[in-house]
């Protein structure tokens, strides 16, 4: 730091620097003719803090930070805060896509709770979460442990495991469609080996379609969360493992009694993140099962339903907004749950 200060020092004109404070630094004292700064250096930390608040690195005028933040704030207001407020408002109206609505109270919510289609979609979303989250909490951890050690060629494996993350949801959907179709790889091989007599309806049966989409989500998420766990594993002190090994703990034992407790905060984070993204699933089902979301819409998730209800010429924006709010509340529950769990863990 002093190198930088000294380099800067000589060039600086003596009197009129706006932020002449660098208090306490050696370089500051080497510069003469700066009574204010020398005083500051002498006065200790409290005075120094006060100086900084006064003349320190504050912005020239109160609006400067807003100027820097303006583009971001405008965008956030326009495409995040306003849409959210608007969704809340619309959810209490009977608005349609081509006309505004009138206030209808909780009618849209009442309609949702009486709508079997809503319960199917909400049930699918929650089922998705319940199945996918444990897979994405534990499997990437196992994968991270597997690729953590530096053995020859491990870099290739790490990159390979990350490849599905880079692929777009559409590409991944198409790739798996070609594996799971009735004339796809799995069914062809199974038929040839006479494991099955008829193709398994991976993509044409609602439940199977949902399961297939879950497989795709887990497959795509493995590498993503593996990187999270690699970061967490890097922070586990090696001495813990050494001590346990000397005490005679085997690899399995060490995994459960050392690794798992050490990466528990990361497991909670991964659990929360994967829960929220499980509730948001759309593209996998759309690509694998088509626009209707499985036969009779039986594999629709909440985002799927929101899009179908809310858009198009007959789009019921009011009702779709109520569904959106319900989706939001659902994600809120799970993120608060995650936060609660990790708070409890810290104490």
């Amino acid at each position, binding site marked *: 730091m002093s190198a930088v200060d000294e380099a800067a020092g000589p060039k600086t004109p003596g009197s009129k620097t706006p932020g002449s404070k660098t208090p306490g630094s050696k370089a500051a004292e080497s510069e003469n003719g700066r009574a204010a700064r020398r005083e500051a250096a002498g006065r200790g930390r409290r005075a120094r803090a006060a100086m900084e608040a006064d003349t320190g690195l504050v912005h020239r005028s109160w609006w400067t930070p807003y100027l820097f933040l303006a583009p971001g704030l405008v965008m956030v207001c326009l495409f995040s805060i306003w849409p959210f407020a608007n969704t809340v408002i619309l959810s209490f109206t009977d608005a349609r896509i081509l006309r505004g609505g009138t206030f209808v109270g909780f009618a849209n919510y009442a309609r949702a709770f009486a709508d079997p289609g809503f319960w199917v979609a909400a049930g699918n979303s929650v089922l998705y979460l319940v199945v996918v989250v444990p897979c994405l909490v534990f499997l990437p951890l196992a994968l991270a442990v597997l690729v953590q050690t530096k053995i020859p060629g491990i870099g290739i494996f790490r990159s390979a495991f990350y490849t599905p993350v880079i692929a777009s949801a*559409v590409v991944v959907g198409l790739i798996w469609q070609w594996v799971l179709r009735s004339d796809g790889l799995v069914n062809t091989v199974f038929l040839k080996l006479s494991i099955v007599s008829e193709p398994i309806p991976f993509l044409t049966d609602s439940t199977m379609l949902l399961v297939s989409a879950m497989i795709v989500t887990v497959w795509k998420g493995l590498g993503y969360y593996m990187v999270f766990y690699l970061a967490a594993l890097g922070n586990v002190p090696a001495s813990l493992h050494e001590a346990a090994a000397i005490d005679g703990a085997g690899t399995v034992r060490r995994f459960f009694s050392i690794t798992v407790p050490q990466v528990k905060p990361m497991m909670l984070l991964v659990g929360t993140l994967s829960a929220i993204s499980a509730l948001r699933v759309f593209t996998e089902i759309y690509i694998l099962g088509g626009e209707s979301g499985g036969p009779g819409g039986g594999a629709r998730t909440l985002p799927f339903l929101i899009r179908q209800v809310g858009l198009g010429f007959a789009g019921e924006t009011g009702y779709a907004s109520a569904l959106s709010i319900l989706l939001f509340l659902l994600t809120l529950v799970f993120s608060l749950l995650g936060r609660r769990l990790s708070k409890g863990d810290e104490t």
Partner: protein
Amino acid sequence: MSAPSPPGGREPRRSRPGRGRRWTGLAGRYAALLLMLVVMLGPIVWQFLTSIRGRTENVYDGMLPSQPTLDNYVRVAESFPLLQYAGNTLVVAALAVSSNTLFAAMGGYALSRAAWKGRKVVFTLLVATLMFPFESVMISMFLTVREMGLVDTLIGVWLPGAVSVLNVMIMRSAFLAVPREVEEAAVLDGANEWTRFARVFLPSAKGALAVVCLTSFMGAWDDFLWPLLVLTDSDNYTLQLGLKTLAGATTVNDQRLIAAGAMAALIPMVLLFLALQRFFFKGVGEGAVKT
């Protein structure tokens, strides 16, 4: 199944039988790795092999194509405007990368350095917006974009993602790491706020900038749901929408062509990934953990 051995590859000293176990452990590890390799890359490789299969051979004639060819890539580009779709995607991606790097850096700068009245409020507000899942505001977002007359335009595809809050947070944590002395030196030099931002802070956050570039490029390249809502005219389609159309087109109905299209969308990303690996991994960690 296998626990991590301590980093640095130094296993605690063991007697001879222990060494034998270590070798079997290593073999087991490689076996598990190879199994996972098949699971993770198998479907992709299968799609790739399909994409280079000759026109006359059966898709299931053995694992490897007997008449490998790139003909399918040519045919899909000729019969389907995938190149145009890729062009549209690149327009959106270029806009997204420029706006995100510049505006996220500016925002992150204002949030990271000197304290100012209201900083905490603004910061909390921004973090709070991360709680709204896109899917729960997309209908209203669509209405807003329609109000602006941007439905069915590439600008409409780009605009809502022009500055992502997550990117602002990435830039903020990068700027927080810049030593105070550097900034002070610049102040002594008489550099004004904008100069300090552009000449001192931006160059010192190159890594984070690369991450923002990369994630916003990938976001624009991979996004599907929002373009699906906004775009109606197929002339404006992005690559992902085009791929979906290609897969659904009854006129195509040739898996070799669909596979070629999917691979054409995937391969540029894979190359980008291989070239910039370190930034990819950095981005994942920073974006998620530090905010």
